[in-house]
């Protein structure tokens, strides 16, 4: 922030001091109090030393940062650019390596059930990030209610499968269609809105969907949610210890010993496939008229209209497409959990998905993967930090935004060149 201003010793010290004060003010409520559970009753204890430490750490950090700037800038500030450029050159290679790694991950010696489970979680967010990337990154429509479509997908699958007994693979496309329908439903009223206003309305939409799910007792089961959602099968082969009447389980069919891991790994591959499908779709559609129209709309809506592009259909198609992938991801989420409730679809989910897109670098597919690993993967690892997890998370966000204000990877390569259709 002070990159252009020349910094003096005095300025650096004052700045660090102010930073320390702010940290102390923030730390007082966050770290300063503690509930003491004595034998008789709860009482409040103080931890003022912690507050002092927090203030000191921020003071020292801020001072160090300022001094670094004084002596000619952060040493490796351009690492990100280099990374971006490198990724640009070897993008193909890197993507294939990532896909290869993701494919063999469950079979690597160090991977266990919990790792595959976490990876599945990360992949759900990668897929959601890629879906939202269509709306935010490509079409430039700031959507803060994306979780609504995720919820619609999840509830569609849960309701269809529990009511009609349809299988996951039949319900999946239907859930995607329903979510896309909701995407259009949201799109209509917000056609004229952009930027902040659009963000607020979509935020409201997300909350409305959640509140409806919570209160429409007869259909959605209200706060209790829906349980007993059928698990997916591999062409009709269930992942169970014992087969239902006249059937065969996955383990029996392949002559394996039953293990709970099979289902975990199977689910992992399902979401990997769905996510890659999303990615493939996005990469392709970016090179097609619709995809280019999305990007053009992001750049300048008025110019679009002057060229005969109809902003209504372009926006609706972006909302619908993004929502469809969220719907797929939602169905998967429902079948994985076996139980869903409105709890899972709160605003914080939308915020995390949006953070993944922004942090990854708007429009960057690989960036989304990195950001999802960072935002969903790392916090899973650092569960030991307990209640300070979110604090660490926030700190990491601040650092990244300092380091790469436009996202981790933010280079864009043209979708067409004169050489040919490539």
């Amino acid at each position, binding site marked *: 922030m002070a990159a252009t201003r020349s910094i003096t010793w005095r300025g650096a010290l004052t700045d660090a001091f102010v930073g320390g004060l702010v940290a102390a003010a923030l730390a007082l409520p966050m770290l300063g109090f503690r509930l003491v559970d004595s034998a008789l009753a709860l009482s409040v204890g103080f931890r003022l030393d912690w507050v002092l430490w927090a203030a000191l750490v921020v003071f020292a950090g801020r001072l160090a940062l300022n001094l670094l700037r004084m002596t000619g800038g952060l040493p490796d500030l351009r690492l990100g650019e280099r990374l971006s450029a490198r990724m640009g050159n070897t993008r193909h290679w890197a993507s294939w390596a990532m896909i290869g790694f993701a494919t063999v991950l469950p079979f690597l010696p160090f991977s266990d059930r919990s790792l595959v489970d976490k990876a599945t979680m990360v992949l759900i967010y990668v897929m959601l990030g890629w879906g939202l990337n269509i709306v935010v990154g490509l079409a430039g429509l700031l959507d803060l209610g994306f979780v609504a479509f995720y919820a619609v997908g999840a509830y569609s699958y849960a309701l269809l499968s529990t009511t009609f007994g349809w299988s996951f693979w039949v319900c999946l496309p239907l859930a995607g269609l329903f979510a896309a329908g909701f995407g259009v439903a949201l799109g209509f009223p917000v056609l004229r809105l952009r930027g902040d206003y659009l963000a607020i309305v979509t935020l409201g939409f997300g909350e409305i969907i959640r509140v409806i799910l919570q209160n429409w007792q007869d259909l959605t089961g209200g706060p209790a949610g829906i349980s007993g959602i059928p698990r997916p099968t591999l062409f009709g082969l269930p992942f169970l210890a014992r087969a239902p009447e006249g059937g065969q389980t996955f383990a029996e069919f392949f002559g394996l010993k039953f293990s709970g891991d099979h289902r975990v790994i199977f689910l992992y591959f399902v979401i990997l496939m769905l996510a890659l499908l999303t990615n493939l*779709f996005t990469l*392709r*559609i970016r*090179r*097609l*008229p*619709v*995809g*280019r*129209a999305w*990007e*053009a709309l992001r*750049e*300048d809506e*008025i*110019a*679009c*209209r*002057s*060229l*005969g*592009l*109809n*902003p209504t259909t372009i926006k609706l198609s972006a909302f619908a497409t993004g929502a469809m992938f969220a719907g797929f991801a939602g169905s998967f989420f429902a079948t994985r959990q076996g139980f869903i409730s409105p709890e899972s679809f709160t605003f914080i989910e939308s915020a995390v998905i949006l953070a993944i897109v922004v942090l990854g670098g708007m429009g960057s597919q690989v960036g989304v993967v990195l950001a999802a690993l960072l935002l969903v993967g790392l916090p899973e690892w650092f569960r030991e930090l307990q209640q300070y997890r979110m604090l660490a998370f926030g700190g990491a966000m601040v650092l990244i935004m300092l380091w790469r204000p436009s996202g981790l990877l933010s280079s*864009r390569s*043209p*979708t*067409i*060149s*004169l050489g*040919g*259709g490539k």
Partner: protein
Amino acid sequence: MTATRPPLLEVEHVTMRFGGLFAVNDLSFSAARKQITAVIGPNGAGKTTLFNCITGFYKPQVGRMALHHDDGPVLLERLDDHRIASRARVARTFQNIRLFARMSVLENLIVAQHQDLMKASAFSLAGLLGLARYHKAEKKALERARYWLDKVGLLDHADDEAGSLPYGSQRRLEIARAMCTDPVLLCLDEPAAGLNPRESHELNGLLTGIRDEHGIGLLLIEHDMSVVMGISDWVVVLDYGRKIAEDTPERVRRDPAVIRAYLGEEENEDLPPEVARDVEEDS
């Protein structure tokens, strides 16, 4: 203009009000095919507002605007802005350049051909499935883009980000992009603004080329009198939203009313003495 065939664009009694301000006031004029019609006037005369009415960004409160295609007239005031571009085939550029800045130069020109590509690709489905039909349409679009890139001298910059081009190139790219929509009428809002004399001269060549080779009508807002006098076939002069003169460039520049309203300094020198005295007394 022959009696049998109506002019390309007929503007009749168009009035555009913003509150109490008459930005365009009961304006009538017409623009012919294969001609450059210049619209000039002092700052705030209502030129851009007129363009916004013709291209559908504003809906005038009063008036009729007819664009005569070979197969009959299209009434512009009834169409949405994007339909004016796609159905009536009126293309425009903007006073403050509006490119798709973070897309490549070539992509800008391909987006301009959205209509054709969309039809050919069945709303992108054919493209998604990689059908040959789409590839053919894309090839055609690329050919047209290449043609216009060549025309405006940006062939070597096809893959550059549009926003990174120098100002003069951005102006030319905007014209190329408008031409890629295959218009019958091209409206240019101050295309020479900010260009150096050499670029401005090249622009004249480009515009007369478009008129002579492509046989379309051009509507040109311009402050640079060397451009207006050099290339336009007909000049319409606005002041406070009203038309104060309409004539050939030679006669317009000698029109006392025009000189009074439009005090172009460089024109002063070659005014006839009696007009110069007129102007002196007025100011």
